[in-house]
């Protein structure tokens, strides 16, 4: 079995199994906890819980103007690499084929050149995020190993994907195998580190929205 067959076969199966197991473990473990009950009456004009949750999820996507000035770079850069990652993952034809093989759904992709350009921008943005983390005294202080591992495991699929697409550094099948293996590492780490925020942010922000709005706070 060559490296690519190993990556596409046993490695990917194992990584996806760990991803599913870990994600469900954490998600069900949180969602099956007793619901939070506030026995106090809701403030006058408080929206229903579902609306408060939506306000919490989407309202926080644009930071309060107080934080915009000092954190503009982190906000804009954060949007750049998150949107960039989404485009690379969901708009590149080979990735759509991969997702179709798992879920049976497919959609039209973007031209490779455009996705490649977005990928390069994403890689640059991720490097900028790391530089910011290393140079900001506050961020540096609160950063833990998890943050750096999560960054690395996000960066590796991007950079190996770019290398595979442009055939730089090694033969295509080797680069493709490394790309798939980097995704395997990402999937294995995902449920157990901060990458899980991709799923949990919906619930944490929703719960925060409900609690805040119940007490009359504006979001």
């Amino acid at each position, binding site marked *: 079995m060559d490296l690519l067959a190993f990556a596409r076969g046993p490695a990917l199966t194992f990584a996806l199994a760990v991803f599913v197991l870990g994600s469900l473990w954490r998600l069900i*473990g949180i969602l099956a906890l007793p619901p939070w009950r506030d026995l106090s009456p809701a403030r006058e004009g408080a929206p229903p819980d579902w609306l408060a949750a939506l306000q919490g999820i989407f309202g926080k996507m644009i930071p309060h103007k107080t934080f915009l000035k000092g954190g503009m770079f982190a906000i804009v850069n954060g949007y750049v690499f998150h949107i960039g990652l989404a485009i690379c993952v969901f708009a590149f034809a080979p990735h759509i084929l991969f997702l179709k093989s798992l879920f049976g759904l497919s959609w039209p992709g973007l031209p490779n050149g455009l996705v490649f350009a977005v990928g390069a921008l994403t890689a640059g943005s991720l490097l900028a995020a790391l530089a910011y983390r290393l140079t900001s005294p506050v961020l540096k202080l609160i950063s833990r190993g998890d943050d750096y591992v999560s960054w690395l495991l996000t960066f590796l699929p991007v950079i190996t994907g770019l290398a595979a697409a442009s055939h730089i550094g090694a033969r295509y099948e080797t680069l493709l195998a490394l790309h798939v293996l980097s995704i395997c590492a990402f999937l294995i780490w995902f449920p157990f580190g901060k990458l899980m925020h991709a799923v949990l942010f919906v619930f944490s922000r929703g719960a925060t929205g409900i609690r805040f709005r119940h007490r009359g706070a504006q979001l």
Partner: protein
Amino acid sequence: MKHDETLDALIERRGVSRRAFLKYASYVATLMALPPGSAAALAEGLAKAKRQSVIWLSFQECTGCTESITRSSSPTLENLIFNFISLDYHHTLMAVSGEAAERARVEAMQANKGKYIVVVDGAVPTKDGGVYSTIAGVSNLQMLEETLRDAYAVVAVGTCAAFGGIPKADPNPTGAVAISELSGGKPLINIPGCPPIPEAMTGVLSYVLSFGKLPELDHFGRPKAFYGETIHDRCYRRPFYERGLFADGFDDEGARQGYCLYKLGCKGPTTYNACATLKWNGGVSFPIQSGHGCLGCSEPDFWDRGGFYRPLPTPLGAMGPALAGAAIAGAALGIGAAVAARSHRNGASATTGKDKE
């Protein structure tokens, strides 16, 4: 034809013009990506070359490789190269000669000790002493060992000889192996393909005859001149791939427009061969041009790579059971964690209540 006759003499005898011969030398030099000055050196080397003794062994194979090479584009200089070599033994072509053919093989080995080239098409069965394929009562394994002993070099023609091919495909009932596993350190050139391109074969032969050495090979022992680039890199449908235009079926609008066959399982991106440039039947076409994706036939284990119509980025093997098991285990762990958290909290509340009492 005498063994010491040079190619130059043969060409003169056959009435082939010097210009045609130089054209052929330039063609081979171009095919093999040799430096510009090499065409003259190649022509000179070929002209002085003496008849090369070749012993062609056919083992576990379908005869497609021999068919491909013997039916290479009609009377050309490539054919002349084949006519020029002294094909002292070819199992398939000489089968009707029986024992006489076997004697010719032994005589050629003795007469050209250390000088003859062994060409092999087909894999070699090794299980149960190699009884699954025998020629004149001799197992392929024995015949290969015996013939290779005093050979100058060995050329494995076709994917079966080069990598085991279809005989080696899972579950490999005969224990088939590639020639590289049995060549015992002899210089080896692999010319894989199912079948290989005839020009790759003649190009390599011309190179060996002219320069007296093996051409530059890749890590699979394939001549880089013919196997240095992927089908995808040289495919005329590549621009469609870059633009994200694909055929989704063999008879849809995308297929009619000639879009990229990547979604239909084309293995061009991971297959190293010259099909897209040299093509087949005298440069008429090649599989992708005829509307079918590349099968990856010049790569090891191409038969066991998850299916010809499975796109490259998709996972190999059935994931369903593993993922279903993981989902059940994850859900059970999650519920268990929540139950433990609830009972912990209830226990803490009860303790707090008791304390208050």
